[in-house]
Structures are given as structure tokens and as C-alpha cells.
């Protein structure tokens, strides 16, 4: 499992290096070569050209940047918000806990990316609205984990000791509970990133995400599906990148989970 995890780190790492190369060499994702439309992979362009004669390889790197800006930001926001709320609800209990549980139940009634689509549907497509749509539906994972972990930690002796010594509740959450639930949260973090990649790609696939000339993995996939018959390499390459990225983060999460249970 640990070996799988190390292999999985490899793929995001390659992309990070490519991003650095991209910014240092200033590769242009919008440069169109009309005589090279839908050309197969060749020496100049390792992944071939898309329907406007743009280099797929460079567009993939730029798509990675724009998709991951949203995904990482959404993860950070949901991580902070969800964990904090989960800890509070688990520790204080009572009405706050019940309220959080019912909000979670309502949000869970919307299966998969339906809520993301629903929120994005009523907002104009922009960076902020996609971020908002992704955040609204994915914070509950963190809240649930944080809540259940806090509930069990509340009964631990060191927390009781801290209570009897008169520490404030927020201080206990910060100093005693949060460091102890961090492991479980990190596992959830990787699964959330994988899910957010799927959701973001799904949104742009449906035309509700990052808009047209701007590269993103989901919209590249949608364009490639239109040319499945003439240029199957386009769809295959883009799908391969999305799948590997999802599998990588899933494997990192599974590896961490395995490590923790040992």
C-alpha cells in the first residue's frame, strides 16, 4: 500500500514540474496552427493537436493549473470550514449538533454532483461561482469526520483532564482535539480532492465550468468526444490524465488510511 502511495505521488509531481516549465518557457495554450488540426502525436507535440490546431500537451498543463487552482482553493475552504464546524458540533453537542446533522442530511439528499450543478445553474459562470458551487457540497465530508472523531475524543482522559483544569472549550478544541483528529482529516482530504477533480471536470464537461477559450480538463474532454471518430487520441490522452489524477489521490488517501489503521 505504501508503495502504491509513493507511485501515486509521482503523477501529480510530474505535472507540478511541467507547470514550472510552462511558466518559465511561456508556452502558449492559445497558439493555433490551422494546418495541424487534429494531428496525431508527433515529435513537436507529444500529445498531438486539438480541433483548433492547438498543442494538447500545453493545453493539458494549462488546464491543470486552472482546474487545480479551483480544486485546491475549494479543498482549503471546505477543510477549514467543515473541520471547524464538525469539531464545534461534536464538542458542544445539543442544538448545534442537531442543526449540523440536519443540514448534512439535506445536502446529502442531493446525490453526487447534483448540488454542484444546481448551484452553478443559477450563477453566472465565473471562477468564484464555480468555487462556491464546489464548496457548498463538499464541506460535509470534513464536518462528518471531525464530528464523529470529536465525539469519541470527548470521552478521552486527557480531554477530561483539560476540562477539569478549567481550559476554555475553544482552547481544548484547538490544543487537544484538533491535533488528534488531523490524521483522519488528512485521509478525507485526499478523497475530497479526488471528488473535487471529478466534480470540476464534470461541470466543465457540461459547459457550466471554466468558459470556452480557457483550457480545462473537463471542457477538453467534451471537445474531444465530438471528434472521437476522427481523432481518438485526443479523448484517450485527456481521459488518461483525468483518471490518473483521480486514482493518484484515491491511492494516497487509501495509503494514509491503511497506515493509520495499522
Amino acid at each position: 500500500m505504501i508503495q502504491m502511495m509513493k507511485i501515486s505521488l509521482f503523477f501529480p509531481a510530474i505535472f507540478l514540474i511541467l507547470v514550472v516549465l510552462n511558466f518559465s518557457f511561456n508556452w502558449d495554450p492559445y497558439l493555433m496552427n490551422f494546418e495541424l488540426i487534429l494531428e496525431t502525436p508527433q515529435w513537436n507535440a507529444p500529445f498531438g493537436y486539438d480541433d483548433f490546431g492547438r498543442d494538447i500537451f500545453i493545453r493539458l498543463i494549462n488546464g491543470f493549473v486552472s482546474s487545480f487552482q479551483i480544486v485546491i482553493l475549494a479543498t482549503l475552504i471546505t477543510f477549514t470550514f467543515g473541520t471547524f464546524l464538525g469539531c464545534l458540533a461534536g464538542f458542544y453537542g445539543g442544538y448545534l449538533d442537531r442543526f449540523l446533522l440536519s443540514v448534512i442530511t439535506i445536502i446529502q439528499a442531493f446525490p453526487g454532483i447534483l448540488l454542484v450543478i444546481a448551484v452553478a445553474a443559477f450563477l453566472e459562470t465565473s471562477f468564484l461561482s464555480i468555487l462556491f458551487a464546489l464548496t457548498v457540497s463538499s464541506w460535509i465530508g470534513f464536518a462528518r469526520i471531525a464530528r464523529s472523531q470529536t465525539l469519541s475524543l470527548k470521552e478521552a482522559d486527557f480531554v477530561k483532564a483539560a476540562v477539569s483544569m478549567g481550559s476554555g472549550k475553544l482552547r481544548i478544541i484547538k490544543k487537544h482535539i484538533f491535533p488528534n483528529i488531523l490524521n483522519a482529516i488528512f485521509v478525507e482530504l485526499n478523497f475530497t480532492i479526488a471528488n473535487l477533480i471529478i466534480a470540476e471536470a464534470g461541470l466543465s464537461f457540461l459547459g457550466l465550468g471554466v468558459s470556452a477559450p480557457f483550457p480545462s480538463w473537463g471542457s477538453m474532454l467534451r471537445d474531444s468526444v465530438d471528434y472521437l471518430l476522427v481523432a481518438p487520441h485526443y479523448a484517450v490522452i485527456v481521459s488518461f490524465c483525468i483518471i490518473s489524477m483521480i486514482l493518484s489521490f484515491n491511492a494516497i488517501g487509501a495509503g494514509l488510511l491503511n497506515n493509520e489503521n495499522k
Partner: protein
Amino acid sequence: MNNFFVKKTIHFFLLVLSVYLLSFFLVRLIPGDPVDILAGIGNSSVDVALIKQQLGLEQSFFGQLKTAIKNLVLFDFGLSIHQGLSVNDIIKPALLNTYTLAVTAVIISILIGIPLGLFVSLTNKNEIINIVKKICNIIIAIPSFILAPILILVFSMQLNWLPVSGMDGHLSIVLPSLTLALGLLCYLANMTLDCANDLKENAIITTARSKGLSIEKIYFIHILRLISLPLVTAIGMQLGGLLSGAIITEMIFSWDGVGKILIDSIHQRDYPITQAAIFFIAITFVAINFILEFIYRKLDPRIR
């Protein structure tokens, strides 16, 4: 049991109400005046008034809330802005199409996934079990918008067996339902495999063996019954992914279901349809889980 039933039913209706209100008031997220966007540039005041009336936006907040709840009770979701038809007439056939697709997918995955898991577990070879589990784990992680192009590429273009998209002929349901089914299929196979392996050393199996039952019979009668409980829970949980996958799958295969109507209405800014489609997809998911909870209680003799 009665107490449980009453509590669960009240819970269910409260959830339906909150999902409805949430999907109804999402329209308030629209920045600026939604009516101006809808009516377009150079709109006449008559258009604006008409659209406002259709969306019920001319009333106060509590007035809108009251109408919304009244409409839910009457099961009336208003008129489509672009087509002029009642939303019910548009959604109903679409819902039927989606249900056909989803039910086919679930049947495929149950009929293939569970036996697959049992047969692989029967081989008793660790290498085979590990390989099957790895492949299943990979397929589970692949979202439907990637699975669909791959399936089209293989079955429609290379092998030329099945139609690429559309809804004519019986064969056209195969690819979309397979796209939806593969994830659930692999999930069920994986789970069946895990549960069957855990049960191998169980005293139940030893007893059945000592009665002289063949190992195949034990697997398909005793173990299948024992693992049906976690499988029902798993199906309930995975149905969410299946329903949201259906939205994208319907778009790719141009299958006239709720998902396609939802996305089309979003692009056309036909808000009444969008609201109703979101509500119906969510309610389907909630209702199925509500029913599954009772099936679960029927199956588990410890609760019964």
C-alpha cells in the same frame, strides 16, 4: 416497528419539504434581476410582468413561500418559459426514461457483479482475487464522462456492435446503462468478494460443509443470504452516484431523461424546469433510500 415507521415517514416528508424549498429558492442566487436576463435586451414590460408572474417573483418572500408549499401539495410546478408546456408534462416522460435507464443499470450490476464476486471468491486463489479487486477499484474511480467515450470507442467504433447515441431500437439502451452500471457492478463484486472471504472461516460454512452440501451450493444459498444485508446498504449508497452519473451519461448518449432536460434547461435559462428536475432527481434518491431502509429491516432477523 410502528413507532419506527411513523418516525421515518415524518423524517422523509420533512426531508422532501426541505429539498423542495432548497431547490426552489436556489433561483434567488441569480445575481441581479433574473427576469431581465430571461426577457433579454429590449424587453417589454408585458414580458417582464408575465415572467415574473410565472416565477412567482412579484410576491413578497413569505407569499412566495406560501405559493411554493401550495404548489408542492398540488404537485404543480408551473409552466416552462420557453416551451409554454406545463413542467409536469415535460418531466414525466423524462423521468420514465431515466428510471428505465437506472433500473436497467442496477439489474445489470446485480446480475453480473454479485455472481462475479462469488465465483472469484470460489477460485480460492489469492492472485486472481487481488487482480480482480485492483481492476474493480480502478473502474469504480472512473467517472461516467470518461467511461462513456471509452465504451463508445470500443463498442460502437471499433466493433460496430451498438449505436453511438439516440433512443431508437432496443440496443441503444445498452451503452448508457453499461456506463452507469460498471461502477456499481465493480463495487458490488468487490464487496461480495470481501464479505465471502470473511465468511469462509465462519462456523456456518463448516456446519453446512459437514452436512454434505457442495461448496457451490453453500456459496449461492448460505453466503448470498448472509451478505445480502451489506449489499442492500451498498446499493442504496451507490445509487446517488448512479443518479448523478445519469445526468452526464444522458447528455453524452442524448438519452431524453431528466438529466438531459436539466442541463438543457440550464443552458436555456428555463428556471421552472431546472427547479423541478433538480427536485425530482433528489427526491428519487431520498425515496429509494427510504424504501431500502424497510427492506433492510425485513432482511435482518436481528432487527425484526
